[in-house]
């Protein structure tokens, strides 16, 4: 099972590091990362493995949010993207 983590907000130093740490704390493995900066905006999309995750998706979201409080953080199950965008 995988989930999609997105982090959007003003660019700063160490966002990727903080988000990855938050994932590792909950035994979540980072499978793929796409990151881009549009003007001043930082946009990170991460595909993470949640098979060994030690908490719920909501708690993972809160843990990441706690590390990067100024950013908008979403964590959603991969199924929802698959069902909406693939036939």
């Amino acid at each position, binding site marked *: 099972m995988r989930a999609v983590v*997105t982090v959007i907000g003003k660019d700063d130093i160490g966002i990727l590091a903080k988000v990855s740490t938050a994932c590792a704390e909950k035994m979540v493995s980072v499978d793929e990362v796409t990151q881009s900066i549009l003007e001043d905006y930082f946009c990170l999309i991460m595909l993470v493995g949640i098979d060994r995750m030690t908490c*719920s998706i909501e708690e993972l979201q809160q843990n990441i949010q706690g590390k990067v409080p100024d950013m908008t953080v979403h964590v959603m199950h991969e199924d929802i993207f698959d069902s909406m965008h693939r036939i």
Partner: protein
Amino acid sequence: MINTRDIIETITMIQEENLDIRTITMGISLLDCADSDIDRSCEKVYKKIKRLAGTLVPTGIAIEKKYGIPIVNKRVAVTPISMLVAVSGGDPVKYALTLDRVAKEIGVNFIGGFSALVQKGFSAGDRELIDSIPRALAQTDLVCSSVNVGSTKAGINMDAVKLMGQKVREAAELTKDNQCMGPAKLVVFCNAPEDNPFMAGAFHGPGEPDCVLNVGVSGPGVVRAALAKMPKDAPLNEVADLIKRTAFKITRMGQLVGSEASKMLGVPFGIIDLSLAPTPAIGDSVAYILEEIGLEQCGTHGTTAALAMLNDAVKKGGVMASSTVGGLSGAFIPVSEDAGMINAAANGTLTLEKLEAMTAVCSVGLDMIVLPGDTPAETISAIIADEAAIGMVNSKTTAVRVIPAIGYEEGQMLDFGGLLGKGPIMKINDKSSSVMIERGGRIPAPMQSLKN
């Protein structure tokens, strides 16, 4: 990996464009609760609903957290209560109070099924139930009521139409200190679907399984946002295509949530009702979609054509996305629940006559319309008859949910709060229809009924 653009699109739909699962509605058959003693019958009803739907709300919340998508309402629909009244006799309000009590205990938003199906005539229990509707709605908070007075196969039961005009008024009288809330929870149907998850018209038809989970998805905001990005000179077939593609994505999400919920609850998955159901929230409006298509304001000339296209495109997208599309599926046009409709009605662009024309091409009918407080019962009956005739002849569901604003002046608004919104009092034709309504009897089924 999933396309970045797709990911951002989904998140934008949910965060900014009000995409949500409007409701998961558990349908529960109460036929096995019927008992010749009404108190015993009520006790069985209470126990069965509590047993089957006790975990509906926590399950809904768990799914919201897992997928990050809001499920706005969790509801229960039950067998038309008139069938239980037929066995038990007694005061049907007892059932309403039981439903209200159990709904509050399990935490659902509404419970539907204080209903009777009388399209061809009254059987035991039907009249008693209809008579008790105004009291039942006044004494409960969460109970919704509906009566089916006509169908393409059976014609229109004009005795029931006459009666319902009176009951709508009585329901308003009894709740006049509470924004005339009673009739906002009462729907009069023609061709009522048995698996509709949307309130106030939801009930669990006698042909349905013992327990089933139906899902209603919504997303007028998503459709409007998609259309807003389209160039203004794009031809209408391309507009229809875009609506279809958007409806497809919305329905797929509903399918995912519905099957997940039914698995968690151990209940078979029924249908997805893909309806563009507006809410008073800014941007979550069907009227704004019509305006985005190119009308200065909803209600002007061209509205019916735009709505017909919208309704059809929504269905086509939905059918491709799920093999079990059912219920009402299409576009809802409840006036008080739609910011754009409220504006259009308040400044006179949207009239009752135009709304009636729109109901011939949309998925339901005259919905959440506030009438002057002195509207006679016969006129309400006549409005119901007109609407039922449109449904009967066009083999489609139509419904009437009108609220006589008793004690309010023209120009004032009724404010129901929450999803029910607020509505201005609309003008009606003041010429009488009473002789026709007093005739009663039946309007025979039309030629369209002879399809066999």
